[in-house]
Structure formats: C-alpha cells, structure tokens
C-alpha cells in the first residue's frame, strides 16, 4: 500500500468519524468566517481594498 493510499484511507475514516459525531450530538456543519490580522511589507496587494483595512 502506498503512502497516498494510506492517507486516503485515514482521511475517509476521519470524515466518517466526524459525520458520526455530528449526527450523534446534532452538531452543525463547520464553516469558518474570520477576521485575520497580519503584518504587511508590501504596498500593493491582491486583496481588494473593500475587504481589507490597513492601519499604521
């Protein structure tokens, strides 16, 4: 069995465990919505200005 095949089996197993736990405890699906704070050393950025606040 290759590493990739093993990794695939592990991932599928984990997903099945997660699905089972969610059903059992009626947990919602997880979907991140976040604010990130980070340092920038560039003037230009690919992130649209409307989505980015700059300070300093």
């Amino acid at each position, binding site marked *: 069995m290759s590493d990739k095949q093993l990794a695939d089996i592990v991932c599928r197993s984990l997903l099945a465990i997660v699905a089972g736990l969610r059903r059992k405890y009626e947990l919602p699906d997880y979907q991140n*919505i976040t*604010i*990130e*704070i980070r*340092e*920038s050393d560039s003037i230009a950025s690919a992130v649209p200005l409307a989505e980015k606040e700059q*300070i*300093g």
Partner: protein
Amino acid sequence: MPNIIEYRGLDELIAQMRAFPQKLKQVGKIGMEASLNVLWENVPPYPTAPEDSTYRRTGTLGRSLGSSTTGGQAGGKPSIYEVKQQGVGGFVEGRFGTNLGYAPYVIGPDEGEKGERQAWMHKGRWWKLEDVVPKSKEKINLIWNGIAQKMADFLNSKSSGVK
C-alpha cells in the same frame, strides 16, 4: 474570503528584531493577543427580533464568538481565536471568528459565494462580522504603535549595552 486587517511600517524593526527571535516572538504574541481581544470585546449584541418572529433564540451564534445576545465578551473564547507565526520566518498573525456552519448566513458579507454571504432575511437587521473591524481599528492601531515602541526601546537598549 476572510476580512483582513494589515498593520504596516514595522518591517525594519522586525528585521532587526530577528537577531532576538524569542523576544520578537514574545512581543508579537502580546500584540496579537491584545488585538484579538479588541475584536472580541467589540462583538455587537443581537439585534431586536422581528415582532412577528416565533424563533426562540439559543445564543449559539453569540457563544461561538465568545459573546452573548448582549454582545461583548461573555463566557469562553470564540471558536476561532488563534495567534500563529506568519509563514516561515514571518512575524505573527491572528485569526478571530466563528466556525458555526450557519454563521455566514447571519453575519456573513454582502458579497461572496452562495452559502458564504448574509441571507436576505437578515440584511438590514443583523450586523456583519466585518462591522467589528472599523470599531476595533483605532485601538488596534494604538496596540501596534506600542509594540513598535517596545521593539525600538529593546533594540536601543541592546545597542547601548543597557540591560
């Protein structure tokens, strides 16, 4: 797409501080934790429920943001609240938010993929997570000014031989 706050102007200080990696890590962690705390304390309260609503509020969304129906900090930390190094050799970055599945429908942005943006029935009534950013900007700016001063003072003390 996450909301992003970028702080800038620390490049030279950070570059010099790389000679003192433990100190750099320490001040970065202090600044970032303080910044995340500002975001956390600025979580707004739940809006007034519609008059004809029969939905019983559970406060789940608020709890997932470390808050409550009355806003601000309440109870445990937000479900997404982390400080980590920004890439290999990078400084520090922080993430604040919620991983609750339906959160984007309630407090998501106006634009985005379906399932990632605020639903029509919540528009105009519920705030959006991005609204926390302008409320927090000034205080976060002060924090990073303070961090810059700490780094400058530290570097000055090292260069002058003062312990």
